[in-house]
């Protein structure tokens, strides 16, 4: 990678700047009687920042904008040669040119104009890289010597360095906001494009989901309908099964661990639950698909039931196992923060431990437990790998847990994996589903966090 070489060159210059700056400060402190304003390393940092930051920013900006400029150039050149092309064909052409220039595979035999364009694209790339290297390194050198000359006993190096660091800190804290913004904007943008092709109400209230659109008009079975109700139903069904397993087991183990278990038992059982939480979801998916689903199927056959090999039950059950530690650790926290005085009062009235738990602690902790369950549910709704591996692909509108259903996340994955074209309703549908998923889980989280916070304040 040529860019990496340049990056390391700039990094080297930055380190050099630090050494030179510090050296200059050392020399100054020997010469003049006036004490230096800051401690020695700050002069080094001062030069290093001046030397590294502007040139690295130039490099980053260059790398971001270069492809766009290159594309415009190629476009203008191709337009002259092939004026009859539509926008889609043109973008295919440009892809070919870029692939050819970087030694990739083409979608067609290269003709004269492509070869020519690739040649000039390649040349442009090389010139651009060369120019970038020259500009970045010369900026770096100029700023290095400029800042070295500015070093004097009165230079407030520490204050300047600290100013830069605090700006960098503020920028990093913006990244989280930018991420959310990026998620929201990209999802909304693509979703709006989707709703240009498919009406909103067909999507939200339609009961038929088959996203395969026909490539040619004479193909069969490719109407492509995007009614998302079966997906919501499937997601709900699997989430419901998951919660049926996770809530009692998670809650009871939290109660046992916090109220009954001895020290030794807790020291053993708590890490076990943590391991359960740390196992990657793809492992659960494999377990669900290869162990649990066949087990349910065989049991069902023995009982005379027809269980699908991709039953909602298997996926939901394994997801429930995954959620157990989540619920138990959250509700453990919540129950621990119920004040001891409530417990003591209950015991003083002669209540047994279980009576205290069911009639005092749980009612007192209920808001927090509800918050925990909401958080767990939002996680179950957004869980992907288990359902991708263990639930079905066909959208069935059914409430029977023994049948195969599909979920929102499964459809997002199947719509987007391996699909290259970005403008079809099929790929855009994945973004609409993603937006929906985001909005639903986000609102559940907001509510849950609010409930938990309010509850905490009550006892603090």
């Amino acid at each position, binding site marked *: 990678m040529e860019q990496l070489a340049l990056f390391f060159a700039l990094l080297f210059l930055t380190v050099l700047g630090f050494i030179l700056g510090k050296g200059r400060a050392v020399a100054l402190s020997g010469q003049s009687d006036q004490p230096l304003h800051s401690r020695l390393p700050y002069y080094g940092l001062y030069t290093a920042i001046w030397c590294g930051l502007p040139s690295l920013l130039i490099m980053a900006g260059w790398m971001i904008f270069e492809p766009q400029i290159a594309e415009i150039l190629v476009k203008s050149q191709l337009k002259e040669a092939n004026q009859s092309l539509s926008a889609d064909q043109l973008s295919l052409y440009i892809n070919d040119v870029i692939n050819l220039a970087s030694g990739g595979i083409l979608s067609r035999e290269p003709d004269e104009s492509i070869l020519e364009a690739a040649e000039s694209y390649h040349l442009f790339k090389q010139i651009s890289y060369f120019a970038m290297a020259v500009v970045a390194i010369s900026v770096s050198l100029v700023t290095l010597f400029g800042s070295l000359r500015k070093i004097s006993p009165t230079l407030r190096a520490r204050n300047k360095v600290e100013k830069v660091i605090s700006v960098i800190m503020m920028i990093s804290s913006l990244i989280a906001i930018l991420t959310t913004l990026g998620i929201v904007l990209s999802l909304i943008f693509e979703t709006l494009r989707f709703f240009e092709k498919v009406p909103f109400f067909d999507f939200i209230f339609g009961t038929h989901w088959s996203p395969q659109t026909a490539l040619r008009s004479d193909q069969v079975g490719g109407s492509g309908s995007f009614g998302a109700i079966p997906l919501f139903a499937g997601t709900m069904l699997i989430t419901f099964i998951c919660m049926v397993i996770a809530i009692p087991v998670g809650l009871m*183990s939290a109660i046992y661990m916090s109220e009954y278990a001895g020290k030794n038992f807790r020291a053993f059982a708590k890490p076990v639950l943590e391991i359960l939480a740390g196992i990657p979801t*793809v492992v659960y998916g*494999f377990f669900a698909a290869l162990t649990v689903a066949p087990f349910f199927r065989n049991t069902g056959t023995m009982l005379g039931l027809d269980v699908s090999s991709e039953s909602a039950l298997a996926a939901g059950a394994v997801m429930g196992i995954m959620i157990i530690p989540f619920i138990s650790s959250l509700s453990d926290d919540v129950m621990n923060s119920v004040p001891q005085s409530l417990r003591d009062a209950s015991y003083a009235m002669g209540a047994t431990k279980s009576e205290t738990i069911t009639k005092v602690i749980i009612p007192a902790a209920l808001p927090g437990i509800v918050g925990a369950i909401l958080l767990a549910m939002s996680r179950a709704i957004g869980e992907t790998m288990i359902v991708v*591996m263990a639930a079905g692909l066909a959208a069935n509108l059914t409430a029977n847990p023994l049948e195969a259903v599909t979920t929102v996340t499964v459809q997002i994955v199947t719509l987007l994996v391996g699909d290259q074209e970005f403008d079809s309703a099929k790929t855009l549908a994945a973004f609409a589903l993603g937006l929906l998923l985001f909005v639903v889980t986000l609102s559940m989280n907001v509510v849950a966090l609010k409930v938990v916070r309010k509850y905490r304040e009550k006892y603090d």
Partner: protein
Amino acid sequence: MTDNTPHIETGPLEINQALLKKRNAREIRFRLYGLSAVLTAIMVLCLLLTSIISKGYTAFEQTYILIDVRLDTETIDPKGTNRLEDLAAASYKSLLRAALREQFPGIEGRREKRQLYGILGTSADYDVRDAVLDNPKLVGTTATIAVKASDDVDSYFKGYISRDVPEDNRKVKDLELIWLDTFQADDRIIKKFNVDFFTNGDSREPEEAGILGAVIGSLYTLAITLALCFPIGVLTAIYLEEFAPTNRWTDIIEVNINNLAAVPSIVFGLLGLAIFLNFFGLPRSAPLVGGMVLALMTLPTIIIASRAALKAVPPSIREAALGIGASRMQTVFHHVLPLAMPGILTGTILGMAQALGETAPLLMIGMVAFIADIPSSMGDAATVLPVQIFLWADSPERGFVEKTSAAIMVLLAFLVVMNAIAVILRKRFERRW
């Protein structure tokens, strides 16, 4: 709350005794429910681990067949140069096939011949080549060389294919069984540690498939993730905890980070696809993009852990530093941050472990392609360990089931090591004030 407090009925003593008995029984039952819930969780974990280990441990062994190969000078080194390059270029496949035909004379039909050759793995000739390159003196003699068996034969000797199944449903046919029995009777079937599993990239043939490509891909991806989210996460945490004024804006950032921590991981994949791939035009399937997506996903975890660690440093440290004339920046970077570092590192390692096991967002940015080569840079197409598991789990061949389980064992081993390091860090360096 007080309304719910159980009240004991006043009455004759015997009735209270009966009630007490009932209440105590209920107490014991409740306790048992709790215990059984915990035991259920533990049992499920054991079940999961045993099911994976029992399916996967056989993948660390590979069946080899000892075959007497006549290493013809004519075929291997006709010019008699004895140079290693010439030896390496020879066609060992034909020698191997001749050796098999010699072993079982009377195989005539094309189909039977193909069947006979099929009991050896697709790269069996490399085993012969490597044996010759190791010891060039073998040329011209007849040597007994261990060559890799095909995945079906391997499965048969590992007991996954039963002889009792009717031939039509069995991957290893009757004729092959006769040959294999002959080999076994001669003690020519041996099992060796499967080195290829750790040194090969992915392959369509189960006996050739290895995890090295995926492991390297995971390392590149995690390197990018760490390089991005550690500095950004720690700086954000410092800013929010030590410098940020309490105002609306800071509140928004805080709420935002908490919510980001609970966004489904697949949504981050959609973000990566729409912004990094389609808007910025970064390469598909590359660890670079994978690392960036995972960094955004791990960022909230690291910020939250770092803030907790910073908060745990007592204010007296800050006051002392400020008191002797340090600036606020110096206080934080020279005193508070070093003290909070163990906690921050623990959180970072746990975040990395989470990123290592993450699959869904990487599917969105095209890291699911079949890639046989081992990636050599961050921009190369690559896959990662969990995605490799997903891909193998989807493969129909029997041989891939044990490979999948073995890959899961490797992934879990990595996670155990990372978590152990985190625990040790916490135990040894975290100070309680």
